[in-house]
């Protein structure tokens, strides 16, 4: 009798396994993914970001995903102001203090620091045999910024599950509470005045709406391709409240190109973006995996960008792998981007000198090494070098600015350690 019960149990377990049904033991386990990322720019920002991701199968093919992220930033960030042959004094964002930038140095705001905590939740559930629904929620809080977002997407499998169509939407609400209050756009920052910064309220808001249409297609036994079309509309306060634009002396002479004023930037209050993302992935006959992606993005600020990302996962023996990768990115400048403004010219309604909205190219070269032979004990370490460069000596430079570097390179090192296990 006891033997019969044992046999029944064993057969039941075996049939469950064959049918792919979750057993009680599998249901109780969490897939845990952890990561710690260290990001360091030479002479600028340093960030440390630990992440904890948790995933659990609630019932057959229904998943709950949780993710916790902490992000600690310190260092200095380019303010947008141009270098001078003289020592320059700037007001801190609060308006309560000042900092000094040496002659011929790119002005960096040294008060840049922040800690961000983020939590996201995802619930992925099959609602029909070939239709899945994913609901997501995200909340993020940092010193001067709060973000709440919700999203929903549906994926429909067809063509013997070789083709998957996805449609999704996301709504994000952001509250920005700049240090000391939001500066009045286009107003001067003058450390000798009282107050040194004119304000335009304490809190600002913006909304971001996203729509995503995607298709994933299995090509053959070892390759697949993905296309996503995404549309995004941002509406509200899109300024960076800490970025300046220098107004420089345009009179020919010894002071030509010297800053005579620093004003706060002002961006348009809406931004539409569209992007086409494509990715191809193939496993070669030696089981290595090749991946290439391309993204074209265009927005109504005049920015077009191209991104190419290539990786090759070289499978070594015993579950180890090494994965070199390279990414190239280039963008055109926003139509309201200026290196500086000329004294005496009318100030445009929208203007920024934020280097991230200028014409630039970036390259990321890296390698990842790890072990993925056991689902209960996977790890990897990733080392990358990120370089960003723009036009250091643009034709528009005048006077002393001809000899200054108006777009210094940004060099960053990224180190990331991942560890995944079952719990």
């Amino acid at each position, binding site marked *: 009798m006891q033997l019969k019960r044992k046999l029944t149990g064993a057969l039941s377990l075996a049939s469950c396994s064959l049918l792919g049904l979750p057993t009680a033991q599998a249901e109780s386990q969490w897939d845990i993914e952890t990561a710690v990322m260290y990001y360091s720019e030479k002479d600028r920002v340093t960030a440390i970001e630990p992440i904890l991701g948790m995933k659990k199968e609630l019932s057959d093919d229904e998943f709950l995903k949780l993710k916790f992220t902490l992000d600690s930033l310190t260092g200095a960030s380019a303010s947008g102001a141009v270098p001078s042959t003289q020592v320059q004094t700037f007001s801190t964002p609060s308006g309560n203090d000042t900092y000094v930038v040496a002659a011929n140095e790119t002005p960096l705001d040294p008060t840049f620091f922040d800690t961000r905590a983020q939590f996201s939740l995802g619930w992925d559930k099959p609602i029909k045999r070939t239709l899945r629904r994913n609901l997501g929620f995200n909340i993020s809080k940092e010193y001067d910024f709060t973000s709440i977002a919700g999203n929903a997407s549906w994926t429909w499998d067809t063509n013997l599950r070789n083709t998957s169509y996805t449609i999704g939407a996301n709504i994000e609400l952001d509250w920005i509470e700049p240090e000391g209050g939001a500066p009045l756009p286009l107003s001067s920052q003058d450390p000798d005045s009282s107050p040194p910064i004119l304000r335009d309220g304490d809190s600002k808001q913006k909304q971001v709406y996203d729509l995503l249409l995607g298709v994933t297609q299995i090509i053959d036994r070892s390759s697949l391709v*993905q296309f996503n079309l995404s549309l995004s509309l941002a509406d509200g306060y899109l300024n960076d409240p800490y970025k300046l634009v220098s107004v420089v002396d345009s009179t020919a002479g010894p002071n030509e190109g010297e800053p005579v004023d620093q004003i706060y930037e002002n961006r348009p209050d809406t931004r539409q973006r569209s992007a086409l993302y494509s990715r191809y992935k193939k496993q070669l006959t030696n089981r290595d995996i090749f991946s290439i992606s391309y993204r074209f993005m265009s927005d109504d600020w005049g920015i077009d*960008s191209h991104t190419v990302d290539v990786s090759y996962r070289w499978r070594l023996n015993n579950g180890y792998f090494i994965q070199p990768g390279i990414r190239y990115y280039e963008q055109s400048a926003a139509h309201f981007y200026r290196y500086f403004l000329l004294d005496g010219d009318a100030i445009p309604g929208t203007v920024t000198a934020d280097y991230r909205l200028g014409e630039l190219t970036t390259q990321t070269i890296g390698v990842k090494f790890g072990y993925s032979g056991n689902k209960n004990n996977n790890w990897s370490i990733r080392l990358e070098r990120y370089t960003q460069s723009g036009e250091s000596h643009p034709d528009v430079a005048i006077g002393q600015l001809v000899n200054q570097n108006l777009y210094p390179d940004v060099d960053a090192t990224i180190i990331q350690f991942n560890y995944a296990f079952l719990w």
Partner: protein
Amino acid sequence: MITIINPVSSFHRRFQYLALVSVLLLASCSGLGVKPWQRDIHAQQEMAMDADSLDIAVDAHIYFSKEASSGGQGFAGGGCGCN
């Protein structure tokens, strides 16, 4: 002669181009695929498009804070005040 470029209409033209390219790419996909018993390689976790999801999240955050583009693989909103 001075040519004035309207960035908004230019944006809409680019969007129409993107939509057309997308439709053509989707149409070219029909007829591809494998039989259910040929999915062994696609069942490997490494072959999923969202494999290495934490790497994707970390990269998205870094590039969102350093560049003017975001999204494509997922939603464009960054959920942080870094840009």
